[in-house]
Every structure is written in C-alpha cells, then in structure tokens.
C-alpha cells in the first residue's frame, strides 16, 4: 500500500495497562480518510487512553498504532494531526490570539486566524486572556488550537463537555464545515444521540474493548432491543429460540424477551398460543447503551 493511500488511523491489537488496570485491551480499528468517527463509551471505558495511544502520547504495551501509515509521533511532527486532549492544554498570561498564532506558527500551512476564530465562534474573545475565560469559552479555544494548523486528522476528546446547547450546535456546525473539507475526524463522547447525529460511524468501547462498530443505525439495531413481555407458566426455555430474541429474562411469571425483531417475535408467540397479557416496550436507547457497555455481552461479532 502506498503511504498516501494508507488509512488516517490504524490501531492493530493495541493494549495498554496502568498497573493492574487494563485500560485498552487489544483494540483493533481502521479509520479511512475523510470519515467522521465517534468513540462512544462510559467513564473509564478507555476512550482517552485509546486516543493517547493513537496520538503517540502513550506507548502501547503491545500492538501498534499508525497515522497515515507512519509512526504517530512522526505524523504529529509533520503537522498532519491536530488534537484536543480531554483536559488542560491552555496556558496563562497570553491572549487567545497570541496563543492561536503561536500554535499556527508550528504548522507548515495553518489556516488564517480569522477563519479559525469564526469556526470556533471566538472572534469576540480574541483579545481576552486565555486564563480568564469561562469553562465553555476555554473549551472553544481549545478546539481552535486543534484545528488552527489545518491538519488532515482532527482528534477531539470530549469536545462538547463544557458547552451549553447553543455552543454545542455552533460547534457541530463548525465540525460539519471541517468534515466537508475532507478532514478525518475522531471524537469521543458519552452521549449516544451525539454519536448518532454527528458521525458516519460509531465505535462503542467498554472496559477497554471495542463492543460494537458500525453506522449509528447498525449500532442502534444491536443496542436498541425492543422488550416483549408475556405471562408464562411452565417451561420457558423455548422462548429464547423464538425469532429475533436476543435475551430472555424471567421475573416471577413474566417473561421479558429482548428482541431485535419484535414483529416476528410477537407473531411466533401468537402461533404458539402464548400471548397472555402481551406488552411491547420500545427500546430505550440510553438504557440499552448502558446495558451494552456494562454487561459482558460479546456483541462485536454481530455488527461486523
């Protein structure tokens, strides 16, 4: 493969431990150029560690990371990467403009300052001291430092964490602008709806592993199982063999069937004459997501 065709991000079976904690456990993923990818997972899932590994800030215990077919550190040196760590990275006693000009100056072909100020919605903050900004304003400045160098790959660790509703919307407008220019974007988030609306692809991580990887519709199909409940007596094991059923949960005389295809499940129940006090509860995405990332459910195969 020629290096200009190599993917923007390549992780092959990277593992990283912190003492007894396995923060990242054999993660393998490829992000082609131009894709916008959400890294979705709860606290402690390993998102920041994965990002640190792919940026070359952390060394993997095993496995390999590459950006644009080269060592991550080298890719950063060549100005191909702009990144916003989860926290920190702003320094006192300079104005927003001075900070951005300095960062821009380290890149071979940075964006004009005015454009970046507009993109990050901080034009009116440009002469303010960086250490005297509100949390959300600081967050936008941090975002601006990640994109001012006009890098091909933009990596953002929880970019919307401190933003209010308006700022969030403005932020995603800016991101759409960047994605439209063919940039590869990787961002992490805790929110399924954010991942759903703002990315081409969602990678769900939990306990250091990739749990699911696909378009948001594919993810939803997996995580968002409709619950079909009926009252049952006697033998129940056959229920888990019904079409669409992924999960069977018996509580007292109620059977709760988590189904990927509720129509088929209900039809089969009817044919078996087992429809008693039937109840169909639509999927709660957030609940399903929590269940997915905290359970030991090996779902990854189903989505690949």
């Amino acid at each position, binding site marked *: 493969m020629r290096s200009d065709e190599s993917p923007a991000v390549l992780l092959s079976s990277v593992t990283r431990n912190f003492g007894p904690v396995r923060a990242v456990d054999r993660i393998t993923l490829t992000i082609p150029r131009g894709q916008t990818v959400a890294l979705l997972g709860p606290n402690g899932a390993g998102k920041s560690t994965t990002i640190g590994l792919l940026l070359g*800030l952390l060394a993997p215990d095993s496995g390999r990371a590459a950006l644009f077919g080269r060592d991550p550190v080298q890719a950063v040196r060549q100005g191909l990467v702009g990144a916003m760590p989860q926290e920190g*990275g702003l320094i006192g006693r*300079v104005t927003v403009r001075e900070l951005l000009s300095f960062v821009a100056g*380290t890149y071979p072909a940075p964006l004009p300052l005015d454009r970046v100020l507009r993109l990050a919605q901080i034009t009116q903050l440009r002469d303010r001291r960086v250490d005297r900004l509100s949390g959300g304003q600081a967050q936008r400045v941090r975002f601006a430092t990640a994109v001012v160098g006009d890098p091909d790959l933009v990596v953002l660790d929880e970019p919307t964490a401190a933003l209010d509703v308006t700022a969030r919307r403005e932020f995603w407008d800016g991101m759409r602008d960047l994605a439209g220019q063919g940039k590869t974007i990787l961002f992490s988030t805790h929110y399924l709806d954010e991942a759903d609306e703002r990315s081409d692809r969602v990678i769900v991580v939990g306990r250091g592993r990739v749990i699911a990887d696909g378009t948001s519709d594919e993810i939803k199909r997996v995580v968002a199982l409709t619950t079909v409940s009926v009252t049952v007596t006697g033998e129940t094991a056959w229920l888990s063999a019904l079409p669409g059923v992924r999960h069977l949960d018996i509580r007292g005389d109620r059977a709760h069937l988590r189904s990927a295809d509720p129509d088929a499940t209900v039809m089969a129940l009817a044919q078996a004459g087992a429809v008693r006090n039937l109840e169909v509860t639509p999927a709660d995405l957030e609940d399903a997501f929590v269940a997915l990332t905290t359970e030991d459910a090996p779902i990854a195969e189903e989505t690949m």
Partner: protein
Amino acid sequence: MLGYIRFELIRTARDGGYVVFGLIMPVVMYLVFTDLGLAPGDEHDAAIYTMVSMAAYGGLGAAFNNGSGIAEDRAAGWLRRLRLTPLTPAQVIAGKVVTGAVGVVPGIAAVLLTGALVNHVTLTPGRWLAIVVLLWAGTIPFSLLGLGNGYRLTGQSAAMANLMTMLVLSIVGGLWVPVSGFPSWLRALAEWTPSNGYASLSWHVAFGAAPGAREIAMLTVWLVVFGLYAMYGYRRAGRTG
C-alpha cells in the same frame, strides 16, 4: 522555534514574579543599599560592589523564576499539549533555555545601568564587558537548579522551593549583606555557595583582579551537580507525564 521563544518571552514579561524578583527588587535594593552604605570601601567602591551583588541577585531571581514556569506548564497540561504540535521536545527544551537566558538580561542590565547613571559607577569598557558576560553566563547553574525543581515538583511547591532557594542563596551567598560582615562560621559556609562564587567572579573583575581559580572550579562543580539534577528531574517528569 523562534515563535515559541517569542511566545514564552511575552509570557515572562507579564509574569509578576519575574518583574518583581528579576527586575524591580534588585534595582530598588541597589538604590537603598548604596544609600545605607553597607558595603566596604569608599562610596564609589561600595557602589561598584553592591551593583555586582544586586545584578547577581536579579540574575538569580529571573533564572529561578524560569524554572518555576516549567512546573506551571506541566500542571496546566501545556507540555503535553506541546507534544501534539509539530514542535519536537528538544525544540521545546531549547526554547525554554533560551527564554531563561534572555530573561536574566533585563534585571542585570537595569542594575548595571542604575550603577552607571545613578550611582556614577565608572569602569573601563573592558571591565564592563567582562562583568556583563560573567553575570550573564554565571546564571546557567541557577537556571538548571530552577528547571530541576520545576520538573521534579508540582506547580505551587516548585515556585515555593525556587523562591526559598533563591533567597537563601542570595543572603547566605553575601549578595544582600557582604560576607565581610558575617560571623566567621557563616562566612566559611558562604564561600562554598554557588551564589557567592558567581558574584565573586564579577567582584574581582570589577576591582581589577582576575576571576579566582577557586571560584571558577567551584562554580563548575555546581554546574555539573545542578545539570545532573535537572536531567534527573526531566526524566522523572517524562515518566509521570
């Protein structure tokens, strides 16, 4: 890298600690001390002696302050952020060292100018040049000690450690009150301090003597010790992020 140096110099100039300890205090104390007549010899000799003391004191203030800046940078996640720009770590360290070396100049220059313009110090051009070079280059061991503290300790404690070290070295080294006024046990101690060695080089030159071999040897040893300490601190900081 020039951009980084410029950026760091802007930040230094706006740093209150730097302006107070590296610039204002040495000049004010110089004026006060020459008025009090604490130094030996006649008025002109005293003006020369104290000028060197206070220039050295300003050099120390600026050098240590630069080291405290490193701890501040680390605490703010700034060093980590710089690793995500195309700058190399070597460029960052070199930039910081150059910033430190430039940062000591204003304080030294201000005291020397005050000496020449206010206290009417007259020296031959050769001696002026020699003390400028010695006062400037002699700050290197202190910069290294300050950087070592900055890398090894966290924000607040590094600033505190550097301020205390700076004051102790200044006072015990005889920069505030000449060692000739010390009790003999303290004078014996003072003569082994790097700050006393640093200022002695320029005292000697200012009064027409050659820099003493003993001071040069001692300062070289301190340079090596502090250099190793800075390296140790840097390695440690690299391991802990």
